[in-house]
């Protein structure tokens, strides 16, 4: 900040290749000091690569980096930290069993003995918390903090290391709308104190709400730069995808038919003995989309896993097609599939596919026993590859190469592969978790249309998503989960983000004024 007037970051002619892929092509970017700069782009557009180059995870093949007016060579995250650049990752890099203070100190202990460093750190952290409004108890154990507070710990970590430039990668993915608003306040107060912030996001609403300038990336290039005040969501979406995009899903009114899935008093307890799903009752009918809204970690994941047979029930019962599943009569995922229930899991990398498998192998996951895919002994590899190729064509999976490793597809294409696998079975019940997490706008549109089509084809769709916009635009009925319980049900047509947001924080409308002020 000493070189007054010099931009915080200047990138010139950055190129980066991964094998034959040109991930960054002649990227030039100027971020004025003390501004919030948004970078938007579809998955695989190269925005994460660009930020990884800036933070020293990768080396550019060519190009220059200037930080605060000085040419820098950033070969590692240490170099980036020395240059005053901090990064908050989408997935937090925290040690759960350490306290907040210990986490902040990690890597900056300042000597072999912790005591001195801890005392000095405490004073500094308390100053930072005051200055930036980042309240969090320094002695709390990180694993016990809600996500919103963990994110503050990440911010504190970066500030503690003297970062004057912060890169935030999809920071609101795990937050409630209220928590996100709170984060934006913090970011604004940081900007006032001269911190430069680069925000990577795919949520255009956030770009509009908080950034000063925005750069749009497509296919490795920066295709547009705008002052936020002079652009619109529609324009940005079109620039990202390269064609006009429908941001709102068009659908007709639902025609719910018979009940296909009924949960009564459903209870799930996790390995640590914590009640994750707490006496939940609901029904799902054919021909409707029921959305489950909630802040990540309020039992939605466990509910999905219990419904799909991955996790055993600890109480209550589940009726699917006249089959009753109770803790005494459990059914595993294999049996649930046999009941014509398909499941698009929340985390495709962890559960939806096997990254080490080729695409055709991931494309039969869960159906590997189907006579269509296997003989008495050998897999019908030719048939599976053909089938996968056809699915890839119908779901526009790119590249349409069934022999490519599952991990080599972008997030959106992995998701389309998983959706193709589950949807093409023509299930009567479709459980969908986070269908568009980390998926680019073009693919979101496609995925949403497919889900509506499934509904119109008389499938009962249960949608779990932390994207409130997604829940609002797709659901015919919305259930809100908080701490394992269903705390409210709202017809889709009557729902609005504010009410649902307050329900998600378990601050019901009558207490809303108090919660909003506090």
């Amino acid at each position, binding site marked *: 900040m000493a070189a007054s007037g010099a931009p915080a970051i200047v990138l010139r002619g950055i190129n980066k*290749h991964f094998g034959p892929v040109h991930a960054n092509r002649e990227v030039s970017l100027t971020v004025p000091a003390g501004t919030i700069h948004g970078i938007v782009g579809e998955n695989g557009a190269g925005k994460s690569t660009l930020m990884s180059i800036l933070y020293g995870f990768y080396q550019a093949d060519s190009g220059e980096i200037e930080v605060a007016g000085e040419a820098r060579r950033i070969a590692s995250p240490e170099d980036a930290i020395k240059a005053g650049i901090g990064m908050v990752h989408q997935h937090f890099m925290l040690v759960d069993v350490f306290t907040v203070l210990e986490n902040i100190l990690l890597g900056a202990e300042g000597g072999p003995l912790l005591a001195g460093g801890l005392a000095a750190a405490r004073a500094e952290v308390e100053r930072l918390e005051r200055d930036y409004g980042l309240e969090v108890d320094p002695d709390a154990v990180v694993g016990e903090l809600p996500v919103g507070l963990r994110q503050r710990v990440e911010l504190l970590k970066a500030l503690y290391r003297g970062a004057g430039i912060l890169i935030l990668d999809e920071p609101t993915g795990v937050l409630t709308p209220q928590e996100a608003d709170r984060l934006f306040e913090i970011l604004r107060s940081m900007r006032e104190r001269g911190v430069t912030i680069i925000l990577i996001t795919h949520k255009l609403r956030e770009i509009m709400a908080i950034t000063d300038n925005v750069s749009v990336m497509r296919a490795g290039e920066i295709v547009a730069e705008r002052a936020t005040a002079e652009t619109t969501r529609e324009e940005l979406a079109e620039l990202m995808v390269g064609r006009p995009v429908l941001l709102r899903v068009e659908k007709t009114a639902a025609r719910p038919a018979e009940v296909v899935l009924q949960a009564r008093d459903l209870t799930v307890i996790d390995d640590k003995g914590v009640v994750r799903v707490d006496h939940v009752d609901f029904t799902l009918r054919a021909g409707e989309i029921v959305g489950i809204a909630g802040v990540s970690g309020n039992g939605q994941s466990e509910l999905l896993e219990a419904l799909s047979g991955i996790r055993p029930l600890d109480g209550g019962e589940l009726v699917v097609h006249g089959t009753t599943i109770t803790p005494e009569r459990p059914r595993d995922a294999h*049996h649930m599939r046999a009941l014509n229930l398909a499941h698009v899991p929340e985390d495709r990398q962890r*559960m939806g596919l096997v990254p080490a498998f080729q695409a055709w192998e991931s494309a039969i996951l869960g159906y590997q026993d189907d006579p269509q895919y296997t003989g008495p002994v050998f897999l019908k590899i030719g048939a599976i590859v053909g089938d996968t190729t056809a699915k890839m064509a119908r779901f526009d999976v790119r590249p349409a190469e069934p022999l490519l490793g599952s991990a080599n597809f972008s997030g959106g294409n992995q998701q389309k592969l998983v959706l193709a696998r589950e949807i093409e079975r023509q299930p009567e019940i479709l459980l969908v978790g986070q269908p568009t997490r980390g998926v680019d706008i073009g693919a979101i549109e496609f995925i949403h249309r497919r889900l509506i089509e499934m509904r119109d084809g008389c499938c009962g769709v249960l949608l779990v998503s932390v994207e409130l916009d997604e829940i609002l635009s797709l659901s015919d009925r919305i259930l809100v989960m908080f701490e394992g319980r269903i705390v409210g049900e709202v017809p889709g047509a009557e729902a609005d983000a504010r009410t649902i947001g307050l329900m998600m924080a378990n601050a019901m409308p009558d207490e809303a004024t108090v919660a909003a002020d506090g």
Partner: protein
Amino acid sequence: MASTTAKLPVWADVVLLPLINVALAFLVSGLLIAALGQDPFEATWILVRGAFGYEESLGYTFYYTTNFIFTGLAVAVAFHAMLFNIGGEGQAYIGGLGVGLACLALDQSLPFILLLPICIVGAALFGAAWAFIPAYLQAKRGSHIVITTIMFNFIAASVMVYLLANVLIKPGQMSPESREFASNAWLPFMHEALAWFGIEVARSPLNLSLVWALICCVGVWALIWHTRWGYEIRSVGSNVDAAVYAGIAPARIIIIAMCLSGGLAGFVGINEIIGVQHRLLLDFSAGYGFTGIAVSLMGRNHPVGIVLASLLFGALYQGGAELSFENPAFTPDLVVVIQGLVVLFSGALSYMLRPTLERLFQRFAAPALVEA
């Protein structure tokens, strides 16, 4: 993780890297030999000639290779389910017990053609049973497979000493060995088998077990990559959550993979007991189970790689024996050191040079790839 595998071309990963590792092991061995005042080039020459130079030596090399194929495959199958089976030694030992018991019980009454399948089944069953207990403990109780399989090696050794010293010993002799089996239990030697076709080769312990080992290679290849059981094993091995999601029970797969692994290790008993020794005795597993770990690591858990790595270790065993025979300065201990260095570099340190190689490839090969 994905990016680390994508950085190296496949050929560099599966061919170049192992070759560099072996070369390094030989380099260090050479320095060691030079430090002892001997000529490393002469030693290398003796070793290579001792392993491949004449018919008899080739026979010995292939005979050792056979054992390494079995134990290497055993480690590989478990590894595809992400299980580190350190118990190949004990499973091979107990597999041999299965073969021996079958022969002692039936060699008077059954012809070879019926006895052989029983021996094969006996080796597999006993080896599998020895692997089943650690597998069960891992699957149902979470006891770590590395710890339990190591323990089971010791238990196997003690059981064999007890049985041979007290139960199976031929009455009236001092050494803890069973009686010799009747000759209808003997698996033909390769020189005998080839003689049926009029091909004369020198006598060696090499026997038809090699054919069975190669059949097992094809079987493992087909199982792992072309059947749904292999599919399920690999699912559990590389992403347990996805496997559970797919309705696969990891506990079942752990037990199946370990039993297959134990069964394969047990086939060492075929080569040793009815192939060479024709009696049950102590210590015939001779470290093959442990070396199998290095074989599998070096062979990248693929049957083709395992055959090549087995050949290398077979050559080292045979060439090393020749080395200490030809020149008393190369004591058997030194040969063990050389073998140990190869195990160290191609097994334990197999990924040591990988980052360096990746950097070299990024610098020199990657731009060329892009231009192409």
